[in-house]
């Protein structure tokens, strides 16, 4: 007897077969030809059958992990060890949400409203009027933002600076193939910010969009963004800003420096890291019909009901690949709705003051971390001069030890060191991207500084 399969009970099967008028289940699939049938059973390990044994087996494997919170974590690079309030976990683990899928606006009113509220809160954080139902992740959101700009402008080239997240970039390049041309813009080797001269030289009337990551992958705030958006606009191009949303309680939202589209990854808004499975994308714009009609994503809107309630539904359904498979804007399907609910619950938990204080707590720890690293012999924290927010580049190249070696020794002391920049950026060999979050404690920082002191001695 299988607890997940009620009709595995033989007497029930017999009764159902009798009703159908078939001798056996085999008779019901007699049209599957012999030539495609399996000739012997699937080769799978013996199952555990009972829940206690299964739990013991799977959790036994997972127990081999050493988590970011069992160690002292200084890793960021696109995924942040945020504290997730208990209320957020409560919301996303309510089985009415967790086990639902794509019901209608009547009996699934709750998820439509919760998602509309998510859109509304994200729009406020980003200072825009429109936000979509989440994409797969930041990479998907970046791709779609760039492609939206291509469709709006009728152009096929995008400018991407070299100081963007390399993991995201790899995926975006796959997405943009084969029809969107990518031209790279250098970063300034002194500041770490986008090189404006290089950007100007690449700018033309063929360009659909200029991308800015803010803070950029090196943790540096791109501060010349107003100039960049003006440059883009003067050539009829759009500016796409890829932002870390948890910074926006403190940092200026992209609409205020001229961005036409804001996008990014929701993970830092109260979503567990989940080994990278906690990612989800967002795209926000102004309430401009010409731009909105280029979203491939679902957009939930509010509408009246005949009893004066708040009703909800899909705006411009005809855009989507559900409605029109061969003339759709890209495609849409199951993306990351549950993480949208999580981010919504997180923003509502934090409120305006909480988001501001979160940003302050992060910046304060980042500065404290930087101060503590600054005193170490042969370690440079001024590789780039640009102001940093939650991450910064520490240069160990004068220590005679590789980042890999240093990180290995840090791990021996229970510390997850920073991201090794050398692989994706050969010019930054010997540099590490160190990250602070609101969970980083003074003890963590002291432990890191002490461990580095010993390792580099």
């Amino acid at each position: 007897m299988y607890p997940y399969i009620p009709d595995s009970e033989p007497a029930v099967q017999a009764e159902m077969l009798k009703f159908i008028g078939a001798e056996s289940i085999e008779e019901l699939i007699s049209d599957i030809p012999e030539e495609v049938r399996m000739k012997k059973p699937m080769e799978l390990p013996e199952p555990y059958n009972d829940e206690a044994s299964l739990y013991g087996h799977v959790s036994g494997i997972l127990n081999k992990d050493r988590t970011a919170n069992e160690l002292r974590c200084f890793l960021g690079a696109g995924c942040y060890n945020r504290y997730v309030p208990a209320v957020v976990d409560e919301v996303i683990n309510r089985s009415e949400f967790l086990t639902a899928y794509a019901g209608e606006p009547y009996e699934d009113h709750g998820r439509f409203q919760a998602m509309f509220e998510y859109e509304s809160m994200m729009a406020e954080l980003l200072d825009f009027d429109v936000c979509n139902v989440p994409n797969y992740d930041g990479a998907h959101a970046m791709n779609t933002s760039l492609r939206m700009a291509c469709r709006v402008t009728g152009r096929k080239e995008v400018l991407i600076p070299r100081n963007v997240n390399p993991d995201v970039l790899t995926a975006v390049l796959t997405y943009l193939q084969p029809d969107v041309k990518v031209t790279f813009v250098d970063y300034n080797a002194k500041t770490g910010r986008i090189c404006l001269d290089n950007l100007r030289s690449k700018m033309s009337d063929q360009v659909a969009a200029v991308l800015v990551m803010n803070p950029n992958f090196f943790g540096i705030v791109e501060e010349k963004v107003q100039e960049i958006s003006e440059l883009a606009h003067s050539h009829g191009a759009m500016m796409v800003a890829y932002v870390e949303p948890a910074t926006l309680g403190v940092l200026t939202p992209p609409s205020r420096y001229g961005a036409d589209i804001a996008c990014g990854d929701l993970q830092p808004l109260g979503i567990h890291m989940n080994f990278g499975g906690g990612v989800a994308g967002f795209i926000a714009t102004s309430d401009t019909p010409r731009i909105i009609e280029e979203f491939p994503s679902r957009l939930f809107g509010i509408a009246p009901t005949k009893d004066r309630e708040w009703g909800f539904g899909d705006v411009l359904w005809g855009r989507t690949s559900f409605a029109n498979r061969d003339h759709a804007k890209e495609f849409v399907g199951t993306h990351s709705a549950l993480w949208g609910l999580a981010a919504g619950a997180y923003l509502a938990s934090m409120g305006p003051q909480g988001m501001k204080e979160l940003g302050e707590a992060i910046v304060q720890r980042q500065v404290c971390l930087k101060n503590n690293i600054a005193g170490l012999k042969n370690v440079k924290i001024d590789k780039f001069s640009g102001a940093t927010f939650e991450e910064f580049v520490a240069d160990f190249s004068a220590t005679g030890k590789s980042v890999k070696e240093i990180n290995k020794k840090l791990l021996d002391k229970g510390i997850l060191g920073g991201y090794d920049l050398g692989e994706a950026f050969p010019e930054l060999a010997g540099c590490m991207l160190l990250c602070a979050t609101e969970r980083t404690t003074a003890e963590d920082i002291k432990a890191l500084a002490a461990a580095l002191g010993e390792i580099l001695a």
Partner: protein
Amino acid sequence: MLMTGLERMKKFRQARWNEPVIYELSEPGQRAVLVPGPCCDCVSTDEAIATLPKGMVREGAANLPELAQLQLVRHYNHLSQENIGIDGNIDIGQGTCTMKYNPKVNDRIANSPKLTDMHPLQPAETAQGILEIYYKLGELFKGITGLDAFSMQAGSGSHGVLALASTVRAYWRDKGEEDKRDEVITTFFSHPVDCAVPIFKGYKVTVIQPDKDGYPDIEAFKAALSDRTAAIFFTNPEDTGIFNVRIKEFTRLAHEKGVVCCYDQANANGLLGITRTAEANFDMSFFNLHKTFSAPHGCGGPGSGLVAAKKFLRPYLPKPLVEYSPEKGYYLDFDMPKSCGKIKSFWGTAGAVVRAYAWIMMLGADGLREVSRVAILNNNYCMKKILAIKGASISYPHHKSRIEQARYSWQKLKEDTGFGTLDVQRCISDFGTHYWSSHEPWIIPEPFTIEPSESYSKTDIDDFVAALAEISRMCYEEPEKVKAAPVDSTVHYTSHDYFDDPKKYAITWRAYNKKYNGYFEPKKK
């Protein structure tokens, strides 16, 4: 029992809290959660903020709602009660989606900090547990598919199609035929993304229409095939629940032209242990771990589209793949110079991977086969009952049986009463369940697709079908009731005029307040 299932369903009243939009609940100064202050006094918050460029510090706080914690929890609690997941209803009305029970023990495992607190960039030696599960799930899929290499990067079925299409493109690039091979062939009753995604990847797509038997027209397929065909994308069984009996003939013809054969196995719930990707001679396939393999749908993701490939396509799959060696243990293999690249940040939806692993290890080969046998039994039982309902019929009726789902039609009901599938959909929410029409375009008139997976009992099916029969009766005998529906759901008839007109639609509360006063009173410009 005091009442029959239908009587209980008819007395259903969904929670109707008239829940305000969260901004209406906001009260200045309230906080649900507090945030840690400075970590030490070596630098103050003001000094730290002063390190940021002046023009880049936000002026004015974001307009987010302000609620105390209980009021926040109550709001979301109300919204959740105004939603019906698998745990709350007989969720068989959403065919093609394989709504099955999501075992609680799998949630318990996936919610462990041993998974949730893992940073994706941790050294492999600290992530041996989760990497082992990725690797071992691939090993299990060797048995399930008969193929060789597995990628778990894709976040859903559509994303799985993107992984396949990107892999196909990388393969032809490596063969020097990327420019020549610019066409893809799919079938009408394949999922719409089997068409939309290859178009997104720059392919010209031919959609093969069904022949009189409901199978993809093989003559049309032969005509479409050429040395310009890069790949075929076939769902099987198709969304009609009909197994394409000539499937091996299609792959044979395609392989003759060197074409890569991609199998959409989103509808695999009736095939486990019976027929596989390998037996149908496809080169690649994808499976939805959030459908057939029991990971929850989460209101629409994150899911996982596991990609299976024959050995010759491994070099082109999204990177990295999880590998094992006695020296290194489990690790991420990035050494894939011919890879199509990545399609997602990091390594995929780990929570779905762990849940699918646990589900398969609970059931084993016999259990998986029983899943499919019962899904087939349930479906054919359900079909016979639905076809006894006045006004209901089935597409391609001469097919005596179906695999795991079936596409029906209310054409007769529409002709007799004027009510069609969308009217039935409105009505059924008054019975505490729901139902989906079907993918567009509707070449089967007034369609609906029912998929009673193995999780549902005979009694569940009896009750759901009784509700459909009752709605049919209402259409014939009590049209006023049908017109008024839903009456017992959370909200009442919602005007669609507000979703297509830029002057009227509001995609956020902020946009609403710019366009309207009070309850949808347009603001004067």
